[in-house]
């Protein structure tokens, strides 16, 4: 998506031949995330641009057939630039009554429902709280309905392999995927290879799954059904030439951190504690030992960040990662990293809050926490990723700022970015400028000052083990230059000012306008994962002739130097955010601009139509 060629004049993503939104929904145990993931891969291989939205319950194994146990995976793919997972699905695959009930309201009028009627029995209907079978009572009349006994068809297809009933039914998702691949003219071969590799230890199971896949595909090909089931070919999207792969945000951050540490010429130490949705970063990094990465699963969130600071003190690039509640626990240690001026990267994969909130749902409500959420005047750079691909760049940027300025840096992402996949043009690493760290190893001219400063106001980084540079650091206020304990009023003023000036002076690129003109009637200002819906909404409105521009802020703190003047060049500014108006408050505070909030905190990403409506309202 970030690499797609933006085409302002392109038609909106509504016609089925241009872009399609498919939503797979089923029970937690039905393998919907896997189905979605593999369909994503096939779609990427077909050259379509795409965006996905995995939407799964917080419970690990919710009771079968229940409404709260429904797991869904939505993919939007098309022949023009795709930046969101799509508003309303064109196609809903419902594996049971509960999946139908929770997902059908979002389906476009006239959209296609493919339902596994084998699962619409009395027991499952009761669990989904249906009084009557919706497949029979006409209540789905505004959609096209295709009833298929997927369960039975799958059982028939895998019969030769002698699987037990339960195991056989687990192949349902492959049958469904086979049908979906046929519908959208996708190649089955990569998936067959994948199944062979996945079940290498059990070739019989691999063959059964492949048989189910082929049966679903064959059904689409040969079933003489009139009506809804048609094959669609979605033409490849015009994307920049190069080598591509699919990438989730969690992978992107892991890879970006490794790249950042290598550009800094440092070993990386990652201290983490399991938490949804941040754990995937720890999982990815723990397999990359050959890249000079040490991972440590600590006893709690506090130990995770403290161990990372300890490693930074020892000369590694310390990194820690969590989600909102865990970030709250790390607050005191962040203050120590600020006080001792040690590099540290803190990744916050935001989720719905406060407290435990909505662990598997997405939100952007930790911006205040990132910018302001520590005791004392404790300034810290904050960077926000807009998409999986962008998270790679942001992770490198966080490593650069942390090591060049001797400061902790917070990288904000969210559950949506962490789990979502997009095609990613593999970057050429030689194009990135290295920022090698130079440790202080000898007493410099004029004597050693542990809290002396370079031109960026960064203090020297001295590794314990270095002769001649013995010194002590800690959380008590430091004396200017010497770093000795000092409680004097003038010294605290001077050190507070120094810490602020250093972070204010972090060099960040000037803010660009993503879409539209500099100056005009309306700027839509976003940050983080709202990039997709804002971009599409602004593109559509501009295609209709509206004077509206899209500005998307990566550097939340310090903000780009030109941002104030840029915002003031518009008559109106609106700020769509998945919170109650946090960036809006910062912009008002920093620039005295009358930024208006557009808020959504339902745990679901913005729909394009919602942003379009906000633009229409702002333009009057």
């Amino acid at each position: 998506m970030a690499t797609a060629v933006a085409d302002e004049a392109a038609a909106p993503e509504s016609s089925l031949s241009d872009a399609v939104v498919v939503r797979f929904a089923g029970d937690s145990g039905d393998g919907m995330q896997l189905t979605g993931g593999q369909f994503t891969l096939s779609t990427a291989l077909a050259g379509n641009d795409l965006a996905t939205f995995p939407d799964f319950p917080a419970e690990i194994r919710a009771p079968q057939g229940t409404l709260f146990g429904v797991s869904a995976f939505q993919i939007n793919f098309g022949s023009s630039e795709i930046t969101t997972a799509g508003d309303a699905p064109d196609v809903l695959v419902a594996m049971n009554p509960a999946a139908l009930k929770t997902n059908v309201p979002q389906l476009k009028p006239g959209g296609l429902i493919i339902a596994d009627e084998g699962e619409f029995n009395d027991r499952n209907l009761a669990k989904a709280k249906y009084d009557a079978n919706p497949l029979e009572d006409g209540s789905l009349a505004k959609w096209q309905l295709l009833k298929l006994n997927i369960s039975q068809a799958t059982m028939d297809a895998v019969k030769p392999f002698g699987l037990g009933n339960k195991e056989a039914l687990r192949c349902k998702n492959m049958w469904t995927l086979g049908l979906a691949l046929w519908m959208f003219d996708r190649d089955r071969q990569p998936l067959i290879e994948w199944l062979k590799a996945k079940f290498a230890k059990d070739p019989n199971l691999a063959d059964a799954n492949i048989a189910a896949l082929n049966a679903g595909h064959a059904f689409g090909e040969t079933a003489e059904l009139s009506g809804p089931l048609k094959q669609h070919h979605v033409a490849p999207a015009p994307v920049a030439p190069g080598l591509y792969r699919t990438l989730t945000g969690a992978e992107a951050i892991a890879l970006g951190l490794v790249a950042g540490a290598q550009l800094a010429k440092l070993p990386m130490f990652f201290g983490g504690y399991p938490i949804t949705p941040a754990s995937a970063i720890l999982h990815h990094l723990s397999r990359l030992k050959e890249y000079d990465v040490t991972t440590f699963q600590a006893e709690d969130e506090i130990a995770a960040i403290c161990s990372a600071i300890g490693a930074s003190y020892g000369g590694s690039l310390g990194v820690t990662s969590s989600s909102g509640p865990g970030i709250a626990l790390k607050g005191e240690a962040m203050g120590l990293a600020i006080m001792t001026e040690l590099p540290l990267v803190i990744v916050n994969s935001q989720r719905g809050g406060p407290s435990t909130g909505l662990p598997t749902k997405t939100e952007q409500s930790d911006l205040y926490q990132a910018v302001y959420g520590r005791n004392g005047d404790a300034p810290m750079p904050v960077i926000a990723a807009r998409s999986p691909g962008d998270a790679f760049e942001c992770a490198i940027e966080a490593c650069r700022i942390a090591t060049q300025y001797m400061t902790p840096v917070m990288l904000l992402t969210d559950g949506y970015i962490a789990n979502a996949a997009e095609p990613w043009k593999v970057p050429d690493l030689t194009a990135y400028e290295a920022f090698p760290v130079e440790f202080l190893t000898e007493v410099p001219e004029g004597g050693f000052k542990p809290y002396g400063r370079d031109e960026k106001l960064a203090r020297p980084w001295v590794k314990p083990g270095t002769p001649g540079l013995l010194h002590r650091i800690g959380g008590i206020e430091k004396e200017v230059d010497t770093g000795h304990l000092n409680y004097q009023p003038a010294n605290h003023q001077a050190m507070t000012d120094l810490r602020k000036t250093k972070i204010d002076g972090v060099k960040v690129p000037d803010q660009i306008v993503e879409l539209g003109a500099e100056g005009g009637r309306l700027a839509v200002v976003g940050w983080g994962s709202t990039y997709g819906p804002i971009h599409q909404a602004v593109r559509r409105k501009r295609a209709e002739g509206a004077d509206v521009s899209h500005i998307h802020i990566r550097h939340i703190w310090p903000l780009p130097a030109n941002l104030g003047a840029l915002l003031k060049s518009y008559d109106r500014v609106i700020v769509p955010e998945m919170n109650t108006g946090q960036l809006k408050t910062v912009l008002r505070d920093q620039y005295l601009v009358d930024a208006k909030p557009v808020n959504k905190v339902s745990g679901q990403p913005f729909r394009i139509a919602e942003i379009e409506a906000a633009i229409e309202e702002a333009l009057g």
Partner: protein
Amino acid sequence: MNEMTTIARTTTLKDWETDQEVRWCPGCGDYAILKAVQRTLPDIGAVPENTVFISGIGCSSRFPYYVESYGFHTIHGRAPAFATGLKLANPDLDVWIITGDGDGLSIGGNHTMHVIRRNLDCQIMLFNNEIYGLTKGQYSPTSRVGTNSPSTPFGSIDRPAQPCAFALGAGARFVARGFDVSKELPNVLKAAHAHKGAAFIEIFQNCIVYNKDVFEDFAAPKGAEDRQLWLKHGEPMLFAKGAKGIALDHAALTLKVVDVVDGDWQAAGVIVHDVTNRSVAHMLVEMRFGEFPMALGVLYDDPRPTFEADVWRQNEAAAAGKTADLQGLLKKGQTWTVKEGGPDL
């Protein structure tokens, strides 16, 4: 692992003193512990630049400022976590954790447990003064029941934690005890340093302002021989100038004090201290002062592989034979090429 070029050289007590003014109360037990450490470091051949003192928060945690080495005064209770990150980044450093009864057993109890469980190679010196000194005298998790303090004007109610029993329960491979003004303290520290792995040392420390002389019942020089049992590996557990000893009550499976007549400790059934005997160590840490003398010295010492060594070994094994080709890693998995004018499938 960082290559360290260490020039062998000898140091003296003076080499370990910083230019910082020591800010503990006059007469505080911390002064004696500081001196014991500064006296021990030259004896064990410690190298200042390779030595790191890491502390939490509290009176004891000011310690790093007063030792001429590397030092990190961190946040309350978390010193073990910083030490873990530091040792994983550079296992060659000699790390001393300085903590107290509040820091290490109350707010930081979790980290104390895990650093011991993991067996990070470090010395953990827990200064136990049975009180919160820096916050002006509230009772602590090791205060005796009934301790009158600003927060417990009618006496504390909760039963105290036993630091050595806690450490052993957490899986410690080295547990020792000493007290601030004891001449034996440097020997205890030396043994702790010689142990590869997490070495836990409880040091009774007299807070002369808020909990004065609370350890006098066994630490006072007068009558000390009757109230202190200094344990030495391979030697019988004797005290009171050899007139008493510790023996096993076989029926009750507990320890008991026995009289030794004419020096015949074998006849009295006195146990010979074996620092590797974990069962006896469990009984020694539970031995109640009063009924028994205070067990001091090295209670238990039986090393196991250290955490950081195992981590490095696993990292090296996992990396063996692989090249750090990041560009290759970025391309891993299923990829496709888009040529000018569309995808190439």
